[in-house]
């Protein structure tokens, strides 16, 4: 492959652009200069560290280490879901529901794609497994976080509607049904929009990266389509599981709405 190597001083040139931007935001009193620089520094440091970890992982290539990495990524994604909520379920339930739903959907879709579609040898070859899982987890995380946030917030805001429906003898799931559907739509909308706009508005990041790294556009496109479909499936099923579990947890065995289980 004819990949043009990048050296550190070349990256430093693009870092100068960031510093110039920070200077401009400072002059314009936008108040984001500091967080811009910190974020840029985090990108550089975090990606460098991940690069080192992946280099090491690729050279070892054993199932244990790949699985350990996957679980680490999953737990971090679960923590990120919790951090993005306005209201969380008490007692670690938000973390549990988020992590479980991502485990069920993102892990299952990744393994299925590795074994049945790409079929590298062995199936857990880290060059394929880790980026695929990362893409899936990242997007599933967004869907799960958005949908849970929407569900808990509408339960809080529309308490009088849900309880009035309960008073009229509806079951808990009937009473919250409309808000459940809203929450699922909120989780699925970003990936539907991304699929609809793919290639027209923007070239997806992964495909761009592959093309820059020397892959032929036709092959890069195939991989991109694969990624889009698996992301949609992972996000969709993850959202379903998360919303279903959370909607159950918002009620108790007597079908009472239990907003006391939510905490800020």
């Amino acid at each position, binding site marked *: 492959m004819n990949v043009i190597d990048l050296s550190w001083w070349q990256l430093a040139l693009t870092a100068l652009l960031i510093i110039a931007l920070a200077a401009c935001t400072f002059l314009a009193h936008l108040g984001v200069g500091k967080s811009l620089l910190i974020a840029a520094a985090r990108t550089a440091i975090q990606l460098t560290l991940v690069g080192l970890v992946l280099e090491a992982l690729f050279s070892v290539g054993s199932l244990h280490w790949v699985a350990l990495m996957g679980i680490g990524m999953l737990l971090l994604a679960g923590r990120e879901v919790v951090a993005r909520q306005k209201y969380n379920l008490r007692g670690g339930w938000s973390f549990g529901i988020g992590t479980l739903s991502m485990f069920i959907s993102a892990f299952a879709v990744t393994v299925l794609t590795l074994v049945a579609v790409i079929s590298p040898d062995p199936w857990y070859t880290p060059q394929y497994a880790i980026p695929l899982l990362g893409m899936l987890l990242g997007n599933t995380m967004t869907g799960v976080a958005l949908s849970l946030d929407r569900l808990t917030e509408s339960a809080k805001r*529309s308490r*009088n509607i849900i309880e009035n429906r*309960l*008073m*009229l003898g509806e079951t808990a799931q*009937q009473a919250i049904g409309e808000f459940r559907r809203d929450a699922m739509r909120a989780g699925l909308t970003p990936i539907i929009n991304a699929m609809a706009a793919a290639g027209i508005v923007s070239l997806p990041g992964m495909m761009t990266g592959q093309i820059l790294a020397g892959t032929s556009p036709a092959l890069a496109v195939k991989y991109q389509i694969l990624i889009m479909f698996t992301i949609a499936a992972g996000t969709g099923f993850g959202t379903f599981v998360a919303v279903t579990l959370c909607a159950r947890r918002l009620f108790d065995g007597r*079908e009472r709405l239990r907003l006391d289980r939510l905490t800020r």
Partner: protein
Amino acid sequence: MAEPAEPNLTSLALNNLSIGNLENIDLDVGAGEIVCLSGTSGSGKSRLLRAIADLDLHSGTVRLGAIGQSDMPGHRWRSKVMLVPAESAWWHDTVGEHFPERSQEPLQQLGLEAGAFGWPVSRLSSGEKQRLALIRALLRRPAALLLDEPTANLDKDSTERVETWLRDNIRQQQLPTLWVAHHEDQIARVADRHVHIVDTGIEEQAMTP
């Protein structure tokens, strides 16, 4: 063989019920009986009704005839022991979608226009909402009624219509009814018995004839 419709002879019985600052409430409401409940604001009237409808955590038992609250799922209990809140919620676009059947008779009896089922919910006044919420609840054929200030948003004329309509339905269907009321004159018009919340309990009040 068709038998004459048996009047519903179930009573509503609270036993040792505690919720919020109310403790060990005992109260029997007979079939077709209206018991008015009064108390200062914040004394826990609405929470007591919510406990009876099993919407809030509480201790003690509530029985409808021979059936206890926990003998059936929450939604089945609430479809029998129906709470009509002071502020009703409306979630569909039009009024009619909230009703199990669109019978004109109660609309007429409560002084509402015949076309009310076709109205968008956004145009309802608070008084119309209150009357429609009562119809919505009664049309579901509950076995007991919990009314939280059912005439709070109504003028004098509508208040009397609603009182008459509720009393007729309660007598006819023999519904045990707990009715939260503020005004002495309303209590005198509708109540068979009157209990007042004092501190953490309830006290039976003498009815002025």
